[in-house]
């Protein structure tokens, strides 16, 4: 039974973290602010999601459709089957977000994207409850699960930081870095799930990187968009990596000797894929912390949006 698998890959973002780490709050905010994307979220449980009644268009079985085009599926106890059903549905989403269960190793879920050309791993976001971190990371029943979630993640959201003193925040960061190899992976402060959609999901499509007039998206972030010359992807990767640790995400399209390619960067994850020759190439968009600077780099911005704290 041959099937057409020639369609464009759907980006897959995994939101990991313990029960109570704030995944649901982040998801809830995403679904209310999808920024024009039709997101399908695969969640553990509708009940805790707390979606505003006025944006619910339809409820059907294990699925809730929202007026803004997003869909929410509850996973029951079979993530594999739920994801399979999302992928074979006639109505394909722009982006799939999986809320990992609090005990799962997100690397296992990420492997789905490696065995399916219709899926592309966008990134693994790990929520860490900054208040509970010290206790959880020293509990022998929990610490190895937490370590595996942290190892697999590309971007960290430190949640509940509004309840920490400055000293506690410093202690939390130190403890996290001592117990794990965080290296250049970004750690983002997150209060009530309030993180720009671009940080969670990356940029929507390559066209927006050229045309969209960006608005200031958050007071602690900075975005650049502009032109980029043709170059081999490995060269580009080196340039992108040189922007660490202040770069959080990058997306763009350029070309090498074989034609155009799309690149995606999330935290530390770098991915390239071939693009159709018809797509205009030569642009990029970056988002990073307010210290991000592209001076004296190959990235020539024609738009910089910044809002100093």
């Amino acid at each position, binding site marked *: *039974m041959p*099937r057409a698998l020639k369609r464009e890959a759907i980006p897959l973002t995994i939101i990991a973290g313990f029960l109570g780490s704030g995944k649901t709050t982040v998801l809830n905010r995403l679904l209310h602010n999808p920024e024009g994307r039709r997101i399908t979220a695969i969640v553990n*449980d509708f009940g805790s999601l707390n979606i505003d009644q006025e944006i619910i268009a339809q409820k059907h079985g294990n699925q809730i459709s929202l007026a803004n085009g997003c869909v929410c599926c509850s996973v029951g106890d*079979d993530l594999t089957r739920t994801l*399979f059903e999302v992928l074979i549905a006639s109505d394909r989403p722009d982006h799939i977000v999986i809320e990992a269960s609090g*005990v799962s190793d997100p690397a296992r879920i990420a492997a789905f994207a*490696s*065995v*399916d050309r*219709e899926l592309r791993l966008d990134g693994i976001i790990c929520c860490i409850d900054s208040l509970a971190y010290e206790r959880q990371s020293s509990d022998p029943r929990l610490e190895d699960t937490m370590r595996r979630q942290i190892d697999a993640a590309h971007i960290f959201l430190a949640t509940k930081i509004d309840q920490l003193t400055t000293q506690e925040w410093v202690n939390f960061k130190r403890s996290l870095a001592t117990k794990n190899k965080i290296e250049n992976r970004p750690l983002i402060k997150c209060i009530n799930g309030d993180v720009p959609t671009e940080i969670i999901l990356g940029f929507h499509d390559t066209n927006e990187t050229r045309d969209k007039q960006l608005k200031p998206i958050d007071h602690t972030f900075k975005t650049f968009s502009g032109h980029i010359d043709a170059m081999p992807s490995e060269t580009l990767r080196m340039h992108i990596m040189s922007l660490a640790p202040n770069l959080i995400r990058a997306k763009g399209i350029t070309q090498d000797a074989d034609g155009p390619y799309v690149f995606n960067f999330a935290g530390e994850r770098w991915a390239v894929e071939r693009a159709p020759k018809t797509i205009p190439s030569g642009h990029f968009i970056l988002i990073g912390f307010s210290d991000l600077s592209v001076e004296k780099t190959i990235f020539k911005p024609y738009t910089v949006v910044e809002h100093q704290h």
Partner: protein
Amino acid sequence: MTTIYEARAILTMNPSQERATHVVVRDGRILAVGQKEAIAGWERDFGPLNFNDEFCDKIMLPGFVEGHSHMMEGLNWNFVYTGYYDREDPNGKIWKGLKSIEEVIARLKEENIKREDMSEPLVAWGFDPIFFGDRKLNRQDLDDVATDCAVLLFHASLHIINTNSFVIDEVGIEANNNSDFIRRDAQGHPTGEFLGQVGMFVAMRATGINIFASYNDDSVLHNFAQICQRAGVTTATDLANNLADENVTALRKMTDREDYPVRIVAALSGNGLEAEEGIKRLDEIKDQQTDKLRMNIVKLVADGSIQGFSARLRWPYYHNGAPNGLWYIDVDKLNTLIHDYNAAGVHIHIHTNGDGAIDGALDAFEAAFNKHYRPNHRHTLQHCQMADRAHFKRMRELGLGVNLFSNHIYFWGDAHIEATMGRDRANRLDDAGEALRAGVPLAIHSDAPVTMMNPLFTAWCAVNRLTSSGNHLGGERECISVEQALETITLGAAYSLKMDHEIGSIEVGKRADFAILDRDPIFEGAEKLRDIRIHATVLGGKVFVNEVND
């Protein structure tokens, strides 16, 4: 109609009358049990009796109760068996165990050409490469079987799958990815082996169908019942079913048939639900229950399997240094679920393989009982393979029962010595002896389709504690006697399902559910327990004779 059955011996599991020769059955229930001398009195008291002497040279036991099995056993027989050990199918055909990869490929080729629609996926199960040393099965092996359809070879554990190149080309495997779940050769090409959930996902995506969606087909329930009947089982569990409307309908449709030879106890799969939802669902379907279908248990899963290195162990973890298995459910959520179900009076069975998971479950029950102690709760730890003496004592204190996975001793005992836990911990694997000494209500099980359903074989494992290579796990202390084992596969399992007042022994008032054996297990003794053939079963007074087919 009142029927009197004569047997060479009836092993009743009733301590007041351990042996009898005659049993009177009316309306599917046992009216009287005794010796030949009582017949005259029975005829006087109960009116004309219809004599049935078809079992007069057989041994009658209470019908066996399989306290941990899965309906998937019935589904698997729609696919090709490729396991290492001989296994009997629903029709009584013995599929020879395959002792090399070449034999596996030969069987697949043989079954492939018999198929009507060659474009359908060829699905096989039971593959267990642990016995084949360094020789790994790869995509080229399966390409020898077929290149124009998907070939899907599920391992015995169901957590690993091998595929042919057709599958790899269909789904599109990402290059240069070092995922632990996609096996690659030295050149970095996928070998066709996928681990964990990814394997099932690949199978679905390559074929475009959910192979396991046919769970409710009549053929699946039929196969399952045949497997039970051939093993002497008259009550079997489907221990984790989502009990959606279509599942309940399918279960009712088949079990309502008078010729359906087994009672089914289907447990609600609880890991993906909030307790509130589970309690509501069990209440909604409560009135759909019948004498032959029970749906009054919630099944939770705390960890994975020991041989798959996904069980949750406590220090010093796995013998070979493999990373510890993760919880299958948040510890906080586990505590909440056990508390809430217990408070609502729902009967809980929980899968706990590793000693770490056992600790977690015991903590959760203790906390729950501090809030609400329910007499006669019958909550049961399933598998519970690594429990030590302290665990069993704690179970007794908490009033918990245990259903041990005794078949593991034979099938994976050697692997447990070598790789998973080492000789010292393996000595007390599935320690039925200690459970009984501690006074913990005991059952033993097959977890079919993980291993074959055959309670006499399971009893043999608990009595002899021999691995497949002939190693003994532990000494006398861990073994139980033949008498104890027989009680465990009847009354013991019935107790764990809260059914011991109606099944599990041959006593007045109970259901007329019998297993009819060719030979007497007490006289045959410990060594030959597994060789005894099941001639027939009786369910509610209806006889189901097994055809001889070998």
